[in-house]
Structure formats: structure tokens, C-alpha cells
């Protein structure tokens, strides 16, 4: 059971990071529909960086860089060229898949055995990890999980207690007011997207650098979209995102647990896998329009 929960927390890490990235940008009115692609390219960048240099740190930096490049492209097209976010996101997700697979081949050819890298070590936090039950669950994780822990209060502080947060929140609600106040709406949005790209790339790298130690083209498998959905479910606020992530992480872990214990025979495993998605649909329907940023998905265009 403890193992199960440890795993749930671990698997929640990238979702939490991705959802936080979305919270930041969606508060400014930008959905990052390329999140799936950013995850993927982050995973790939992390893998390649680590494999080529042998350094996990360089791997993580490479993941951040890849995520940012992807986000920059997304930002240029959606913020400055004012094209549809959903559409641009779809195109970039396909592009990311292509880039990863193609350059994987360019760099490594067709290896006979799968390429492996060392993964991020688990770090036991002194004292805290000794707490019974909670210790192993929460405090024997890798550095990315701890980073996620830290980023939650940071996001709460930044969004609600600082001028930056005020600006971000205002941009999603009424970009014109932000413009009139002498701030550059498009620059704010673009920079936020870049930051989200960095966080998203890092989140993606969790799957290679933090967990599997290898790269396959299907490694993300829709988890970027889940992070996207969690942001909606979490009502665009960091606290809500934590609960949303736990729901997904738990469902994931429970599915694996049931499969391990009973095989397929007793309970349809697929139902449990589908549960978080059904949950998302139900919650989307039930709490629609709760406090969605007023200008979410709307490019800021003034006549010129």
C-alpha cells in the first residue's frame, strides 16, 4: 500500500508541474495546447542531454531548453501572429513527435538494444523520510518531485501576493486594462508561455530522466493533455491543481494495484484507467464557467 502511494506521488509529479505551467499561462489568457508536444520534446531532450554527456543536470537543462524552444514557437504563432491556439497546438504536437523520432534516428541510428540512461536518484530527506508511512510516500522521491512540492506554494505566493501575479491575473481577465496601465500584453503572454515551456519541458523529462531511463515515441501517451485538463479541474488555481493531480495519480496507482492483485478477472481495469477522464468530463460539465479567465484563448488584437 505504501508502495502504491509512493508511486502515486511519483507519477503525479509531471502532471502537477504541467498543470502549474498551464495555470500560469491560462491566467494570462493563453491555453498551451502544445503541452503534449512540450512534454514529449522535454522527455526527449532530457534523455539525449543525459545520454550524450552522462550528466543528469545537463539532461534536465536540455529538457528545459527544448521545452522553451517549443513554447517559443507556440508563442510566436499564437501571441504575435494571433492564430488559433487549439489549431497551433495540434500542429506542434505532431511536429514534436516528428522531431523527436527523426532526430533520435539521426543521433543514434537503429540501436540493437534500447539505449539506457541512469535515472535521477531517489533522495531521502533527512528526518522527514523517517516518519512512518508518510516518510516513504512523500520524502523518498527524486529531485523533480521535491521541485513540484516547492513550486506549489511559490505559485500561490506569486499569483496572489505579488505584482507579477496581479499582472498575470489581470491579463487573462481584461488585457485592455493591462495595456492601458502601460504594460505590454503580448510580451507578458509570450514570456509566461516561455516559462511554462521550461516547466513543461522539465515535467516531460521526468518520464525519461526521472523514471524510465529510456525514450520511446509513445512515452507521453496523452499525459500532457491530462495536465491540461487538471488545470481546468483545479479551477485555475494552484491549490485546486494539487487535488486534481492527486485524483489522477491515485486512479493511475489504483489501476495498477488492482491489476497486480487480481489480474483482469474481477474488475475491469480499463474502467479504472478511464475513471480520471470520466471524472474530468463530469467535473467539466458540473463546474463549467466557474472562474475561467474571461479572455482565455482570445488573442489580444487591437486595430493598427
Amino acid at each position: 500500500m505504501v508502495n502504491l502511494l509512493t508511486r502515486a506521488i511519483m507519477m503525479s509529479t509531471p502532471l502537477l508541474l504541467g498543470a502549474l505551467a498551464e495555470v500560469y499561462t491560462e491566467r494570462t489568457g493563453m491555453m498551451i495546447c502544445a503541452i503534449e508536444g512540450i512534454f514529449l520534446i522535454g522527455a526527449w531532450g532530457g534523455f539525449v542531454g543525459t545520454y550524450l554527456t552522462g550528466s543528469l543536470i545537463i539532461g534536465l537543462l536540455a529538457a528545459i531548453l527544448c521545452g522553451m524552444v517549443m513554447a517559443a514557437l507556440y508563442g510566436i504563432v499564437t501571441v504575435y501572429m494571433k492564430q488559433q491556439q487549439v489549431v497551433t497546438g495540434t500542429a506542434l504536437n505532431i511536429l514534436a513527435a516528428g522531431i523527436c523520432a527523426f532526430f533520435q534516428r539521426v543521433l543514434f541510428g537503429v540501436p540493437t538494444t534500447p539505449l539506457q540512461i541512469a535515472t535521477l536518484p531517489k533522495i531521502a530527506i533527512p528526518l522527514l523520510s523517517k516518519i512512518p508511512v508518510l516518510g516513504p510516500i512523500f520524502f523518498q522521491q527524486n529531485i523533480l518531485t521535491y521541485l513540484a512540492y516547492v513550486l506549489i506554494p511559490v505559485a500561490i505566493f506569486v499569483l496572489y501576493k505579488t505584482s507579477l501575479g496581479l499582472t498575470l491575473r489581470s491579463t487573462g481577465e481584461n488585457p485592455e486594462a493591462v495595456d492601458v496601465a502601460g504594460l505590454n500584453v503580448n510580451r507578458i503572454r509570450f514570456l509566461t508561455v516561455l516559462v511554462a515551456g521550461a516547466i513543461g519541458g522539465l515535467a516531460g523529462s521526468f518520464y525519461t530522466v526521472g523514471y524510465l531511463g529510456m525514450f520511446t515515441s509513445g512515452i507521453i501517451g496523452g499525459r500532457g493533455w491530462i495536465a491540461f485538463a487538471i488545470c481546468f479541474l483545479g479551477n485555475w488555481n494552484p491549490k485546486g491543481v494539487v487535488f486534481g493531480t492527486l485524483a489522477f495519480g491515485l486512479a493511475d496507482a489504483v489501476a495498477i494495484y488492482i491489476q497486480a492483485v487480481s489480474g483482469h478477472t474481477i474488475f475491469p481495469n480499463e474502467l479504472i484507467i478511464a475513471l480520471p477522464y470520466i471524472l474530468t468530463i463530469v467535473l467539466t460539465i458540473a463546474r463549467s464557467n466557474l472562474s475561467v479567465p474571461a479572455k482565455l484563448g482570445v488573442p489580444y488584437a487591437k486595430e493598427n
Partner: protein
Amino acid sequence: MAAPVEKNKNSANTVEIASSQPVVELSHVSKYFAKVVANKDVSLTVHAGEVVALLGENGAGKSTIMKILYGLYGKDEGTIRIRGEERQIKSPADAMQLGIAMIQQHFSLVPTHTATENIILGNVHGYIPITECNRRIRTLAETYGFDIPVDRKVGELAVGVQQKIEILKALYINASILIMDEPTAVLTPQESEVLMQFIHDFTKQGNSVVFITHKLKEVMEVADRIVVMRNGVVVDTVRRTETNEQQLARLMIGQEIVPSERDEALDFEQAVSVLELDNVSLALKGTSACVDSVSFAVHEGEIFGIAGVSGNGQDELCDILCGSRQPTCGEIRFLGRDITKDSIRSRIEAGIGYVPVDRYRDAMVMDMTLAENMLLKSSFSPVWQSRGFIRQKALNRYTAEKIVEHRVKATGPNDTARSLSGGNQQKVVLAREVDLGKQLLIFNQPTRGLDMGAVDRIHKVILEEKERKKAVLLVSTELTELFELCDRIAVMYRGRLMGVFHNGEKTTAEIGLLMAGVSDQQEVRA
């Protein structure tokens, strides 16, 4: 405060008078939008301690030129000097740096944030000590005698209070040049007076105000100097003391207004009543009623006007009449039949035409062709269908006829609505609605934002429809329009009708008082 008067509107180099250098000097500024020339060769000056009124009709380019000064738009030609130095104002941040602030016609406030948060937006760095900020804003408000609930969400506050928050935003950054775009449009006369007092106090301290308006009365009340604009150019600059309302009106409109001829006031008591409202009310969640027990009747061949400052429930009343909103209580009868619960579609089919106030949002699909826009309200009608397909040829022919009949400037039925000018778009809407509204026509500010030519044409059409014995309901904020066209006029204030009068029974001044909510009984107290 001897402000120099520029008689020559297009003088190449402004005459510098040593005693007073202008704080703002625009010379030969032009601005082109994708489809229109917004400003052409505009030159004007503003001096310290002066109130300059920018007077002109809607669409004359007043807002645009000031948005250029405030950095919201980039100029295409010309120069801007601030306190004698040429400046490139690329963004509002540059403008604010130079002490310029601008209050937009549609306030730029974040409704879900508090007053304080709105005021400090962009002017605060790092951690926000919210209690300290609240205190500072409260103090600032008190020095100008404003009473602002600093920690309430702005969306919950009245429009007058929101405007004070906008002013505080300017004061917070110590602006010395304040631009206000149609600031009285949403205010009651009393609130306007408070605003005028503020402007006097503010300029007395050596600050300047640019006051954008299309109301002559206000200009005469508040301005030191008046810049009159028409069609994107400055037509003249005059001192208040050397002009009068008649001259200003002439400058602004460019031609004398000839009132259209009206029959003697008819007695409609005997005529068939087409539309009857019986105690119709609408209360939105959490607010007081925005339409409050409204009852009246519009008869065959009658033009019934509703006067009022915008935002007093007229739009909601129109929503109820066209069927897009259900009243909380009350009954609407059309030719004696209760239609309160009828859908929009069945009201269209019954013969009610409706010209909504926001053409872009509610009346047209800008990316569709004119023919398609003519079809918009009769897509269910068998007239335009055969065997499940649209009768495109017949529709095109019909549209082409209407284009000619209503003198729409368009090349043909396949033009997109977007490619037409505002006045021509409105003519298309009008053409459609007068055909659909066989019995009743509802107009909500049909001439708002249009040039005089289009306004004239629309007034003519309304009178023609009256001749055809249709009932017409005309909602307008322009008293002149109502006095020109209507048989009876009702005044709406805070959702209530303050009375219904035959045209001629009351003077404009009396109606104006009613629009401000001062009824005969209250007058004694006020």
C-alpha cells in the same frame, strides 16, 4: 492662463507664444486603419491649466487621436511634442512616464479584482502589502473627496464609482495631463456635476484635461478651448468665450439640421394597439430590478419613443420584447395575443422587426455576404427554400433590389457585410427589419455612431414605416431625435418609466430632468 487660439487649423508651424508653451502639441498626425482613415493631418495643442474639449460626432476621430497621444495606437504620420520636446510615444507606459493618463470610454477595469488592485496594476513591484496599499488608496481618494470601497470587487460597484476608480488610477501616477473619453456618457446629470467640479479643481492646480465629447452643453460648461473634429480632421479650434452652441453644432455637423416634417400630433387612443406591456419587470440575480413594472402601449401608425441615459434598462427592455430574455413578471401582448413566452423565432414570424443597438454583435454576421445577412432572420421561412435547398438566386435578386431601394453603397449581394461602412451596414439591417416587421418595428438607438447622411436616411425610413401604419418603438438617448420623430415619449430611469408624454407636452429641459430621475414631486426636494 492665456491660451493662444489657433485660428488656422492647418498651419504648418504652430506659432509659439513665449508666455505659454503648450504641454501637448500634436502636429500633422495621421492614422490609417485597415479600411478607414481615422485621422488626417491633425494638429492641436493643450496648455497647462487648461481644459480642451475635443468635440465631434461619433466616428469623427476624437478617440483615435487621443489614443495615439496615449500610445495605444501608433501614428502613421506627424509629430508629438510634450512640453516642447519631440517624443515617440510607443506605448501607454511611455505616455504615463510623461504624465499623461487616459480614461477610456469603456472603462479598463478588471471586474473580478478589487479597486485597489485595479489602481496599483502596473505601478507596484514585487510583494504587494495589500493593507498598506488599501490605506494609501483610501487616503488618496479622501484628498479628492471620493468615497471608494477599496477592497470591494470593481464589478460589484456602480458605474459612477468605477469612474472614480479610473480617475484615481490617473491620480495615483501623478498624471498632469488627463484625457477623458466621453466621461459623462454613463453618468446621471448629478454625477456629471461632481465630475465637472473635479475637473475644475484638477486644472486649477496647473494640470490639463482633454475632454472628449459630442455633447455641446458640456463643452460650453467645462471647456476653455474647443477643438472641433469631423471625418478625422480638425475643422476648427475656438475659445469657449468666443463661440456658442449654434456655431459649434454647425462646425461639428457641417450642415444645418433640417427637421423632417411631422404631421400634427394625432390622437392614437382610438387606434389599434399593436404592442402592449403590462407591468413587465426583469430582475437579474443579485441586483435590483433593471426593468421595473413597465407598462405602455404602442398603436398602429404611432412612433413611441423611450428616452433615457443609456444603461437605465432600455437594452434589457428590448431584449424582453424581442424574446431573447424572459421577464421576471408581467405580460406582453402583440395585437391582443399574449406573446410573453413566445420564442424569438415565433416573434419574428409574427411580424416584429427589431434593430438592436449593437449591430456588430446582434444584427449582422460580418463575415457573411449581404444576401446571407438578409436571410439571417428567415432561415426557417419556406419563402427562401425549395426542396430543402436555399433559393440562392431568388435571395440574390431580392438583396440586389433592397440594395438599390435603400441606397446601400455596395457592389452587389455577394459583398461581405464587413466590407461596408457602418452606415451602409445599418441600412442593410434596416432593409431586412422593415420587411420582416410587418406590424411592429423596434429600434434601439438606430443611428448611434452613424454619419449624418445615414442618420437622415434612417429617419426617413422610420417615418415611411409610420405612414404604412406600422407601430414603431424607438429607444434613443438623443433627445433631438426623439423630438423630431416621436408621437409620444416615455422617459426611462433605473428601469422605471418616469411618465409618458405627448410630443410637445414637455420641453427638452423637463425631459432631461426626468432622465436624471428627478420627477415633478421630487423637484421640490432637489
